[in-house]
């Protein structure tokens, strides 16, 4: 039987290897992840995340799963929204990123309604119908089998719950693509080299964005996983898109 392969940037690698290669990328950038996000997006990533949180409709008392939550940007705001009666579970497959996020949130006094779990998005270790909201921001791109992850999210959501996926996507504004390509393949690796001394990880970032499903493909993947009323919202000319789907 042919060995299952998957993408890692522009390369095709054995599916089993992707998780280790992605882990190596994030181990390398964890400590300066937020600084790099600010530099690369000129701070706009905060607005993208803010808009994604607005789409969740989270309210006091909700149980929220923040998948691939990394350094806790979404969890920080979600924890305030769910209040003391709610719960936010910050998960990441990568221990270095999760430790970075936990350390930062605890230092900021965000505790009591936040828990931390190192988990694989494809095999969520939670019972069926557990969460009101699941978010995954800039994480789905790195998951080996996205269809499995989407099905796992659907299973873990309560009926009436919604998933919000924030991810790099494909520019829809005419003329933006060449500028974006130039920026991604020259400026990003250079920034990575200067700030975290790792150009390869940021070359992977640019490549992985290109091979990630476009807006409509991801929307149909959500529908195939069982989500209803699926829709997406383009931001910054489609460089980033937020997808939302409900479980009824």
């Amino acid at each position: 039987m042919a060995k299952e392969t998957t993408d890692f940037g522009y390369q095709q690698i054995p599916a089993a290897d992707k998780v280790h290669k992605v882990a190596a990328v994030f181990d390398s950038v964890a400590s300066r992840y937020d600084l790099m996000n600010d530099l690369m997006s000129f701070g706009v990533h905060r607005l993208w995340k803010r808009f994604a949180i607005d789409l969740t409709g989270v309210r006091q008392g909700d149980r929220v799963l923040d998948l691939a939550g990394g350094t806790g940007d979404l969890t920080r705001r979600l924890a305030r929204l769910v209040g003391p009666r709610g719960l936010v579970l910050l998960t990441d497959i990568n221990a270095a990123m999760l430790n970075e996020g936990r350390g930062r949130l605890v230092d900021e006094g965000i505790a009591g309604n936040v828990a931390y779990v190192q988990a694989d998005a494809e095999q969520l270790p939670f019972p069926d119908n557990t969460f009101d909201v699941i978010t995954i921001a800039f994480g789905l791109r790195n998951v080996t089998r996205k269809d499995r992850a989407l099905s796992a999210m659907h299973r873990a959501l309560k009926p009436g719950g919604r998933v919000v996926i924030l991810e790099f996507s494909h520019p829809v504004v005419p003329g933006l693509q060449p500028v974006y390509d130039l920026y991604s393949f020259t400026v990003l690796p250079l920034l990575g080299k200067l700030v975290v001394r790792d150009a390869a990880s940021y070359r992977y970032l640019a490549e992985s964005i290109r091979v990630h499903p476009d807006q409509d493909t991801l929307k149909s993947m959500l529908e195939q996983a069982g989500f209803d009323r699926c829709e997406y919202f383009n931001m910054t000319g489609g460089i980033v898109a937020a997808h939302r789907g409900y479980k009824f």
Partner: protein
Amino acid sequence: MTPSTLLTAGLETALNRYLRLDPGALTGLKTFSGKVIAVELQGLGLTLCFLPGPDGIQLTDVYTGPPDVLIRGAPLALFRQARSGRPTAAGDLEIEGDVPLGKDFQALLAGIHIDWEEHLSRWVGDAAAHQIGKAVSGIRSWGRTAIDTLLQNAGEYLQQEVRDLPPKGAMEAFLDAVDTLRADTDRLEARIRRLAPPET
């Protein structure tokens, strides 16, 4: 991304920068942790939800749950209330839900005191900051006196010379009478409703 995302993000940053200038206000915010205070700006179709916490206030215009308290009013009346801490004319603002919470939060915002001299001293030194502070305070005091005198003279002219405006006492008595009449009408309406034969 909607314009309101940008608006609330900008407002939140500005508000938290302002709050951080008064350590007392940040400490006071802790008591409001876990509460949702909604402010509906009438006429703009905008409701801002304030979620206070130990490190500042989180602001959103998208909150689907019921807030702990809802304060509704015209933007100008809300701004005046937040600045002065004094109640405005009856009917300007409506508060629903946990009324004491709304009043305490408003008192916290009105009570923010920023020690500009202290903040300035970090940049220019104590002596210079004190001199600048004294000068600014003198100008402010002169300005306040000048404005007060102007307002008083203009008020006296309009109330007593040309009699275009009622005196303050008469205005307050009139507003009290309107409030009493409103309460009486409500009571009368309730009584009529009670006495009226039930609809079949």
